[in-house]
């Protein structure tokens, strides 16, 4: 697997504030890389450095193993923070301008406009667009040069639920073509649905990086309920039980390693107990995110 992006000790100071602190990570070809972190943790600043608009204080990065330059940026489609266009130009003209800058054929324009469902508004001035339409135009512009890498900073900001679902499908579709995507977002279940890898920033520092699949690993938790007065006792007798936590009439049973919910179910049936509620709780990215951020550092 070849490397698309490498950063080494990337650091950015704004005056006395250290917005990004000693960031080193890699993104490989084909990854959908989620960049997470609370507000002001340095996501946009990081992406700004990678796209040449913010000068790093210390450190370096390389795209496709090359020293970064503006030719490389033409191969990357990027929307940082919010859509930026010339308000007095129409959507169509804005894209024509982008095509000139990216040096890609104007024939790509109808296709991307179709994709984001703006074709019928293309001759309206950008300033008359709604927030969601602006957002869509930005995505169209990022896709214009058929980029091998796509950088999206909160791309679903301001979209309606249908729009959000569409963007999610779009990201999946693009990723399925082997393209690399770097996605900064606060919507953690979105990230969990589309991303293959993720990194968490906290006050500019990288506090976690790894595959999304690892999130679900580790001890399993089962939510179980049965109409039995001494149900706790029964649960205690199950050899896989690590701890029991009663909560709103149900019991949250954390299992020991190598035990799964179906083992618990089999055990209950063996004991003649019928559970009227049994749900496996997988760890969500959100939970991991909050856990990692609450760790003192």
């Amino acid at each position, binding site marked *: 697997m070849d490397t698309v992006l490498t950063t080494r000790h990337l650091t950015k100071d704004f005056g006395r504030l250290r917005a990004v602190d000693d960031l080193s990570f890699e993104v490989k070809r084909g990854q959908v890389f989620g960049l997470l972190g609370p507000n002001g943790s340095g996501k946009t600043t990081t992406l700004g450095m990678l796209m040449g608009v913010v000068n790093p204080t210390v450190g370096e990065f390389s795209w496709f193993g090359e020293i970064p330059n503006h030719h490389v940026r033409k191969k990357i489609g*990027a929307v940082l923070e919010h859509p930026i*266009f010339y308000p007095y130009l129409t959507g169509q003209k804005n894209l024509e301008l982008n095509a*000139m800058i990216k040096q890609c054929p104007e024939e790509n324009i109808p296709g991307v406009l179709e994709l984001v469902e703006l074709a019928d508004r293309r001759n309206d001035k950008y300033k008359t667009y709604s927030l969601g339409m602006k957002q869509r135009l930005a995505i169209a512009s990022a896709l214009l040069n058929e980029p091998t890498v796509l950088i999206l900073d909160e791309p679903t900001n301001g979209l309606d639920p249908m729009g959000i679902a569409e963007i999610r499908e779009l990201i999946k579709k693009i990723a399925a073509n082997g393209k690399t995507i770097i996605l900064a977002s606060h919507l953690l279940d979105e990230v969990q649905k589309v991303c293959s890898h993720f990194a968490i920033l906290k006050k500019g520092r990288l506090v976690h990086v790894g595959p999304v699949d690892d999130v679900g690993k580790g001890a399993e938790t089962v939510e179980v309920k049965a109409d039995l007065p001494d149900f706790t006792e029964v649960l205690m007798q199950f050899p896989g039980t690590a701890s029991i936590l009663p909560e709103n009439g149900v019991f949250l049973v954390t299992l020991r390693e190598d035990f799964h919910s179906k083992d618990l179910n089999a055990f209950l049936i063996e004991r003649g107990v019928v559970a009227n509620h049994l749900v496996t709780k997988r760890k969500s990215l959100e939970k991991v995110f909050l856990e990692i951020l609450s760790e003192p550092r």
Partner: protein
Amino acid sequence: MLHLLKIDLKKLTSYRTFWVVCGLYFLTIGFSTASGMEFLKWLANTFDKFGSSLNIDRIPLYHFPDVWLNLVWWSGFFKVLLGIMVVISISNEYTYRTLRQNIIDGLSRWEFLASKILTNLLLSLISVVLIFIIALVTGFIYTPEINWNYVFTDIEFYPAYLLELFTFLSYALMLGIFVQRSGLTIILLLLSYMLEAIVKANIDDYFPWLIPYFPMESISALVPIPFYRYAFQEIQDYVDPAAVAIASAWMILFNYFSYLKLKRSDL
């Protein structure tokens, strides 16, 4: 190069303000230079005394070779309008944040600046060509006897005029890049001559030799005031090489400062 110019023109040609300001500028310099003689005739007819005390046909305003310098000097006053347009164009890129997006989309910072500089050059060139054509035509109309030895004398003021415009627009662009807000930049641009005059007045007693090195002074010195020749018979009918050298140095510095600022700032 042409590609970069096309990018900037694409931004401007759909922008109404661009057409309004540039239209105003070109119409003003075009009409005012072309109609000077008609204006004098009108004055002479309206105020009888004026006509009889001065035989307007003998005022060589539009005679070859005087016409070259006269028209260029006159239209030089209106370059402020072009400067305002340049300021609006660059500060829009900051307020709309499109400069940032242009870089993200794959222009280098130098290319972005070059696209603006090329537009400056184009606007200057159009002005020069326009005034040249008007001077040529009016010269043939109003010169009583065409003496071919004189027709193309003094035409060196046209490259000087080009340098004057281009240096001034480079200055406007640099101000825009440093200040980034159109209102404030335009005020500074308009005040530049006055601020410089105040400084000059204060150092006049101590370092008079410094005066020609001031930027606005050097820009004005490229095309000297023509009327001295009528008042005092004192003619400077050549472009001062020192003024060219100083103005060229400023022109390079202005664009270089713009480049440095653009390169170093976070967008």
